[in-house]
């Protein structure tokens, strides 16, 4: 008998995989995996049953708790020994990499920068996030608020700026690009839209021999990266280099090709990817809108017409309505186009604005006032029917149970203006997708797309980027692109879409000899370094002049030294430990405690320093000779390696956790590994 339900094989060892019930997926992910540790199927099967039972109980407990209390409790039993063979355990310790939608191996590229290996650092980025030069300037950088340094010190490592360094200092990287097979695999894929999502899919599929055609309505590829991100933040050369690199890998690009019917496209391809973005800017229907329409512009359309040089001027007095990044780009562009009085108005308090801190800061540094709690009421016209100003009402924010409510105060203000830019959001719009071809839409007219596979209700059609669930950012578009490419490859190879490749991981000991370790733990204790800026006066007069200059080499190397090397994992083996406490005493941040096991709640309280950060895991060992367990709070570990250095028995080791999120570029590598 060889019932392989719930089992899959990795590196010759059988693993158990169980799908997580829908209601728990946001918390636990799509599935739970654990190794049986057995190569032999007969031996793995009984272990499988045990693990499946454990998983099921876990689901049960969580569901009950979630239903009861609205929160998920962490079990009532003593803590289980941590399963470090689960690749996600140590992945989560690398806070930046875990937070990155594409899971770029940040500490590794920062170490490469420290060694001045810029080409390698660039390629590591390129494989994972496709647009290091673009993202190094514009990324939304979810990694930075997650960075451990923000907890152990003050501010996070300037991860994004260091990514830019890999672009700025690299040499010719063409030789390292993947080979594109001359003989194609016979499968044709159609990609609609040439934004970052589609470009990622193309890059991931071309090395596997797919024939890829990209349809783009504009005359150049790049999507919003070209049309909406102003060139004072993202110079055209950087954009062109990284976008055309993919086209040159062999994608067929059809520009000026607006697709007006999906039906017409579907049949010509084995699969279709929709990466058309969220192209519709929201409008503001208040009195005077129609009458003054000549001087009221939808922000994203206005930015596009500037990018294509259709618009070259704007009135002297400009109001920008909205509190997000689009508003920031609009106001900064308006100033550069010659406006001398630009104001941003936003309904909410400043602290609740959606714009990223750094974009808001830049706008403020350029002298643009932000009027918060200011809600638009009416466009005002002069006698000739031309826009002359706007009426606003002041709002007041009230918070009850952490929920915000904006209450009108009755106080009205009038602001004069010549032009208004609306930057209050974007919507998806698919007028070109026929309703009767099998693609289901939800009540908000968004396609129904599977979160894991990116597949729509039409098996051949996949979505990603802003087109899937509304406006996000470039790095999410890339992450979607990777997943869609995996699905398309599975789909064309007739493999189940949920049978997805696991991440590539390995743990390599860094011990080289007595007192010798192969990484540098001498971190810098300096504050985060500021990036140099262009002269403000000059920059404000030049639409294309890049404002941020990027780190020079010295700054880059200094900043790189701030990284804590969170991928250098502390790995514990209880059978070697003699409980001498040397590690406890040396640990600078009191991460390690030897104590009796208990429920997680109680354990967290009784550590040397109570573990209050519930987002961070506790590393729990098996039982030691004295009946106690070792518990390490991952929260504040600075990865100095001193625990392993001081341990007399080698019970602690420092092992580099190389975690590469699955994407098609490493498909070849997986194969090589399986053979070995």
């Amino acid at each position: 008998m060889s019932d392989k339900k719930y089992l899959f094989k990795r590196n010759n060892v059988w693993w158990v995989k169980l799908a997580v019930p829908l209601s728990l997926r946001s918390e636990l992910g799509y599935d739970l995996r654990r190794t049986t540790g057995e190569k032999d199927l007969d031996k793995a099967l009984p272990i499988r049953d045990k693990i499946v039972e454990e998983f099921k109980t876990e689901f049960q407990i969580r569901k009950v708790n979630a239903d009861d209390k609205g929160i998920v409790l962490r079990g009532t039993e003593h803590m289980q020994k941590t399963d470090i063979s689960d690749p996600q355990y140590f992945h989560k310790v690398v806070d930046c990499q875990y937070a990155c939608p594409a899971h770029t191996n940040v500490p590794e590229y920062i170490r490469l920068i420290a060694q001045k290996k810029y080409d390698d650092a660039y390629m590591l980025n390129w494989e994972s996030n496709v647009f290091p030069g673009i993202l190094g300037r514009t990324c939304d950088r979810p990694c930075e608020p997650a960075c451990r340094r923000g907890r152990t010190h003050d501010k996070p490592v300037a991860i994004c700026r260091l990514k830019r360094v890999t672009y700025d200092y690299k040499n010719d990287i063409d030789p390292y690009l993947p080979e594109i097979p001359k003989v194609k695999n016979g499968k044709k894929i159609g990609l609609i839209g040439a934004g970052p999502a589609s470009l990622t899919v193309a890059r991931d599929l071309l090395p596997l021999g797919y024939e890829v055609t990209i349809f783009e309505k504009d005359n150049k590829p790049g999507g919003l990266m070209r049309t909406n991100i102003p060139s004072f933040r993202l110079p055209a050369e950087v954009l062109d280099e990284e976008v055309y690199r993919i086209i040159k890998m062999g994608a067929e690009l059809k520009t000026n090709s607006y697709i007006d019917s999906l039906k017409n496209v579907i049949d010509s391809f084995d699969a279709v990817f929709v990466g058309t973005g969220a192209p519709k800017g929201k409008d503001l229907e208040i009195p005077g809108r129609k009458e003054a329409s000549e001087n009221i512009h939808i922000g994203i359309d206005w930015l596009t017409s500037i990018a294509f040089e259709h618009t070259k001027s704007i009135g002297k007095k400009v109001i920008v309505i909205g509190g997000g990044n689009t508003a920031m780009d609009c106001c900064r562009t308006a100033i550069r186009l010659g406006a001398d009085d630009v104001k941003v108005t936003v309904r909410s308090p400043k602290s609740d604005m959606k714009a990223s801190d750094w974009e808001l800061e830049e706008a403020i540094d350029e002298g643009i006032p932000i009027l918060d709690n200011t809600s638009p009421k009416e466009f005002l016209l002069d006698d000739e029917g031309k826009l002359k100003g706007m009426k606003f009402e002041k709002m007041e924010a009230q918070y009850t149970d952490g929920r915000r409510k904006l209450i009108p105060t009755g106080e009205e203000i009038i602001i004069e203006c010549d032009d208004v830019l609306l930057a209050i959001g974007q919507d998806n719009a698919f007028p070109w997708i026929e309703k009767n071809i099998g693609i289901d839409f939800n009540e908000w007219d968004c396609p129904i797309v599977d979160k894991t596979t990116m597949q729509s209700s039409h098996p051949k059609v996949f979505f990603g980027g802003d087109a899937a669930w509304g406006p996000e950012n470039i790095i999410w578009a890339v992450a979607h692109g990777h997943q869609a490419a995996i699905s398309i490859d599975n789909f064309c190879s007739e493999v189940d879409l949920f049978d997805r490749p696991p991440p590539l991981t390995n743990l390599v000991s860094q011990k080289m000899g007595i007192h010798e370790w192969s990484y540098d733990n001498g971190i810098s204790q300096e504050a985060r370094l500021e990036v140099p800026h262009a002269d403000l006066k000059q920059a404000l007069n030049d639409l294309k002049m890049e404002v941020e200059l990027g780190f020079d080499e010295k700054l880059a190397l200094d900043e790189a030294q701030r990284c804590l090397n969170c991928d250098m994992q502390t790995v514990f083996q209880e059978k070697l430990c003699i409980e001498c406490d040397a590690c406890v005493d040396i640990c600078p941040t009191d991460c390690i405690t030897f104590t009796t096991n208990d429920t997680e709640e109680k354990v967290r309280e009784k550590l040397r320093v109570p573990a209050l950060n519930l987002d961070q895991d506790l590393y729990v060992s098996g039982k030691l000779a004295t009946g106690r367990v070792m518990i390490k709070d991952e929260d504040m570990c600075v990865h100095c390696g001193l625990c392993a250095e001081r341990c007399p028995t080698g019970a602690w080791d420092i092992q580099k956790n190389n975690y590469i999120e699955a994407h098609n570029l490493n498909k070849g590598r997986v194969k090589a590994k399986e053979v070995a």
Partner: protein
Amino acid sequence: MSYFKPINKHPNLEKNKLGLTRRDYEGGVSTLCAGCGHDSISACIIEACFRLNIEAYKVAKLSGIGCSSKAPAYFLNASHGFNSVHGRMPSIATGANCANEDLLYLGVSGDGDSASIGIGQFIHAIRRQVNMVYFVENNGTYGLTKGQFSATNDLESKNKYGEDNLFPPIDLTSMAIQMGASYVARSFSGDRDQLVPLIMGAIQHKGFALLDIISPCVTFNNHDSSTKSYDYIRNHNEAMGKTDFVPLGEEIKTNYDDGSSVEVKLHDGSRLSLEKTDHNFDPTDAGNSLELIREKNKEGKIITGLLYVDNKCKPLTEIMDLPDKPLNTLEQDELCPGSEVLDEINKGLS
């Protein structure tokens, strides 16, 4: 790779009444072998000083020669220190004690330093009731000189190379009680819950406090036939009941059944609360204590905990009626009795 402990510390690290964290009581990074029991004792001294809100500049660390005697370099960086020749720390302590009663004296020694070369000095410091905490970091060997038998090594305990030990051990605790030590405890470097309160009690005690702490030498005396290895101690440790240190003005938090605990009041009003496992045991009765130690030795057990305390003893400075103030703060008029007194004396001589 840097071997220095980075300056980072946990942002939620507890602070004591002086606003200091445990890390402010640290010393240099230890150069002892990783895993040495002596390092654990240093950590416990740090913990005790932190909890007692001790100002490091009011402490003097004194030691002799040995790995154990190196340990003061690894705690209380901001304290005074004196590293004497081998076995001579007790004399330094006696002299310093007479000259300045205000400092807290922490003497750190080894079984070689105290039970061999320095035993004569050791005994007299006890006998004279020098007001100090005397740590013997007892590993049954001369660690620093690479593992010769010390005078506390048990008869049946071979050395690392399998050679027999020819002479019976000295039991430092019974000897100290007999010589008049007023606070005698034994503990194990690996049992922090027991050791820290014992250190705190010893610091608050006025008089000679001996802490005989079994402290495995991972390099020369942690093998199978050793009776001072981590494994052996863990298997043969007979800990007396739980010891709690109760600072002045605080309530006792642990509850014991009636009659199963004793309370010992220390000189400054703080208390030690001792859980009793043996109802007849009275830690203030020296005969009782000696009996208990002998009995447990016979059973092959290592009894640990507070073995004896005499909280009514007079320390050296009181016995000798020395001035309360440190000698170096005495002014001319205090030092010189004046011509009237001199005349008086001269008259008596004529």
